């Protein structure tokens, strides 16, 4: 029963973060929100008895993807500032 409540809370957080990621005008907030969606998805995978997938999602989905997004965002913003 407690797992069910945790799953519902996780689902609500993920949906809110996903809507923020698409809706928000600020790119930094959107990137962080997409990372948050991935991070809570990895907790959901643990509830779904998939520890392998949870490990992968936590390290790749929320770690490296966000890092790469920020590298590219930084580069583009600096190109813009040079103009």
């Amino acid at each position, binding site marked *: 029963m407690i797992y069910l409540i945790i799953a519902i809370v996780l689902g609500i957080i993920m949906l809110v973060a996903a809507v923020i990621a698409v809706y928000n005008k600020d790119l930094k907030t959107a990137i962080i929100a997409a990372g948050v969606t991935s991070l809570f998805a990895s907790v959901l995978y643990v509830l779904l008895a998939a520890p392998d997938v949870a490990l992968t999602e936590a390290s790749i989905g929320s770690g490296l993807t966000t890092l*790469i997004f920020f590298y590219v965002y930084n580069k583009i913003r600096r190109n813009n500032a040079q103009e």
Partner: protein
Amino acid sequence: MLRNSLILLVLLGFAAAIFPLLHSYEAKDALTGVAEHYANYGKEEVGAANLVSAVVVTYRGFDTLGEVTILFLASAVIGLFLKASETYTKDTRSVFFKSTEILVTASRLLVPMILLLGVYIFINGHLTPGGGFQGGAVIASAFALLLLSRPQKHFSHKVISVVESISGISFVFIGLLGVLLAGGFLDNHILAMGKFGTLLSAGAIPIIYILIGLKVGSELTGIVRNLKESQKEG
């Protein structure tokens, strides 16, 4: 207006395509079909305690080979693109801040620990949750910490590409050895099976997972490193 209604139409189409999955979903009691075979005979046929590893490495080894190929292609194309755009930025003065001493010291302590964790994850891939992909990602994040904490330093791409090439070639070579010595491509019976549940068991699965881990780790490190080097400009 037309555009909005078209978007709505596409969304409705996707929803209609996936909705039957949701509507006709019924809870299962036990595994069926091919998964049942994997669950019941995986222990004798492959000998890995982690059945996901058994499926990834042996039963569906071709998927893994294709996946590694796609990752290699993506990494190569990224390297090519960033190299082409790097040529007209001659001055390599970094625009990053110098990092503080606390960060440098802490990263010196943490990077070996994270690397050790990554190696632990992919060596124990056939016993505990984890494996080559997860271990590779952890290793890549250790190198990402190194790159982030020393922004002024230049990192060479040579070692990364050598490790990547050697592990990729060895992976295919072990797969071909399976054809020669055992039942087929990527068969893990080319080594002794060992006792179930110990570190040296499951035939060639630990070796294949170590190679996959090195390959994935070096490819992801290569992607991050290329993006970091492209941040420098005059």
